């Protein structure tokens, strides 16, 4: 089996050929700087604004509310830091959750060093933010609630509308990191009461290195990257026109195919979950059974460690992840799995499989067989499993 089976679509996705196609002219012939005065540059500016409009229509907002960034991470940094700074007069308190992406959590830590206060809300065993705790955490000095739309590791989808209502009721701004949700779920920022939203193109078959921050008209945050007057004075730096065009094309296709695509993913996902849970003992599914991204499956296999599992899968041409890609290599188990209450040794044995509509049932069959064999092999090597079996026998 030489063909690789890519089951890590939450880490990144392949850029669609149509997207590459759409970008090409803006490297070659239409290379004008959108900020220049002459007509040649107006073509770049037009492409940029049309891209903005396409993306806006996917969210039910106006093009003027979309600000391109270099990715989801920058959008998260911007939302948090600029809001904290802009509303400092009101107060220095921010609320987020324990299961946010590092782009939010490490930015919160940075703000804490600068004297801001952050409350990290707990989640339940399925990874859903505790709304009562959230509401109680709001103080007169709270300026921002930042809760992700859907989690990148366990796929749990948050009650965004309810959070939006709580935020509105208490007159606090609401930012959501929708990097994993955008393109997978329908999102209408107005209906959901979202003031700011982060997204990233490479999670939906667009290029790596472009994202956006939606900022509702009326939210008075400043720029995070200072300089020229690009992006209506809010995000400096020569605009990445080709990627903006590619991002818009990816969004256009994602919206058009969403229903069909996610239905296929759901079938694949549920098939995979069912087989793994029924065929491999001492295994749990992490995250909510139904309120989860259509393409996410996350398992913990007791007694084994995730990286060794990953490498063995890799030797069988299966690309998977044990957490968010950017934390691999670190020794701490996933903060998300700890937050849903897993003990360390179980958290260490987690595997994330994130599908695309291009995966097949055959691929999943092969994958399940490989996982079964590999888990068995690793358990045989595990002193934890040895202890467990001994204790079972002793109790008999």
């Amino acid at each position, binding site marked *: 089996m030489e063909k690789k089976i890519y089951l890590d679509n939450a880490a990144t996705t392949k850029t669609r050929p149509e997207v590459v196609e759409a970008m090409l002219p803006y490297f070659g012939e239409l290379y004008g700087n959108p900020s220049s005065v002459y007509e040649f540059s107006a073509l770049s500016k037009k492409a940029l604004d049309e891209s903005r409009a396409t993306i806006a229509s996917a969210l039910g907002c106006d093009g003027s509310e979309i600000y391109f960034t270099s990715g989801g991470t920058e959008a998260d940094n911007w939302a948090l830091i600029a809001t904290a700074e802009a509303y400092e007069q009101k107060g220095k308190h921010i609320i987020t959750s324990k299961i946010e992406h590092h782009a939010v959590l490490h930015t919160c830590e940075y703000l804490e060093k600068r004297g801001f206060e952050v409350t990290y809300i707990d989640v339940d065993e399925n990874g859903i933010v505790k709304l009562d705790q959230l509401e109680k955490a709001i103080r007169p000095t709270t300026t921002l609630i930042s809760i992700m739309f859907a989690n990148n590791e366990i796929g749990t989808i948050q009650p965004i509308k309810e959070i939006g209502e709580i935020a509105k009721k208490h007159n606090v701004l609401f930012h959501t990191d929708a990097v994993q949700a955008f393109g997978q779920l329908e999102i209408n920022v107005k209906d959901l009461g979202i003031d700011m939203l982060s997204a990233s193109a490479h999670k939906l078959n667009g290029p790596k290195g472009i994202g956006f921050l939606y900022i509702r008209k009326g939210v008075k945050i400043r720029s995070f990257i200072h300089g020229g007057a690009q992006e209506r004075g809010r995000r400096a730096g020569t605009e990445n026109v080709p990627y903006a065009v590619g991002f818009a094309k990816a969004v256009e296709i994602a919206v058009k195919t969403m229903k069909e695509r996610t239905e296929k993913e759901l079938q694949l996902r549920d098939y995979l979950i069912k087989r793994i849970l029924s065929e491999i003992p001492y295994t749990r599914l992490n995250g909510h059974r139904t309120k989860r991204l259509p393409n996410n499956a996350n398992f913990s296999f007791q007694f084994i460690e995730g990286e060794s599992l990953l*490498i063995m899968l890799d030797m069988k041409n299966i690309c998977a992840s044990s957490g968010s890609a950017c934390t691999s290599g670190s020794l701490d188990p996933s903060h998300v799995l700890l937050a849903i209450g897993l003990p360390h040794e179980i958290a260490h044995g987690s595997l994330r499989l994130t599908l695309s509509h291009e995966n097949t049932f055959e691929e999943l069959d092969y994958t399940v067989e490989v996982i079964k064999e590999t888990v068995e092999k690793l358990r045989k090597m595990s002193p934890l499993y040895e202890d467990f079996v001994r204790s079972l026998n002793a109790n008999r």
Partner: protein
Amino acid sequence: MYTQKVMDHFMNPRNMGEIENPSCVGTVGNAKCGDIMRMYMDIDENGIIRDVKFKTFGCGAAVATSSMATELVKGKTIEEALKVTNKAVMEALDGLPPVKVHCSLLAEEAIHAALWDYAEKHGIKIEGLKKPKSDIHEDEEEMDKANY
């Protein structure tokens, strides 16, 4: 990310398993850090390590360093085994990524833990052997620390 030698010892670990009625056993590491190594030894009356087996819960490097450590001590005397350092394990594996260096320390420690158990069981003192820590922490690079 790993050398071929590491990959070989990970995919085909040497001396993996248990020894029934071993002379001694040592277990180091902890589940919190994601690495646990257990080493069984069969040591004869001349103090020669006749057989050694390991079990490891941990990453690829943890498995490979345990495997290599068993190879390096098998057939050696206790004194010789004590001289098997984490450096020796790493070199025998053609190196480890910086974030994985602690695995080789754990392997060294596992040897010590097994020998400590031997010394305790036989009521002897082994020259140069200190009570092993059960837990080796990561030796983070200064740079990384500065950033988080």
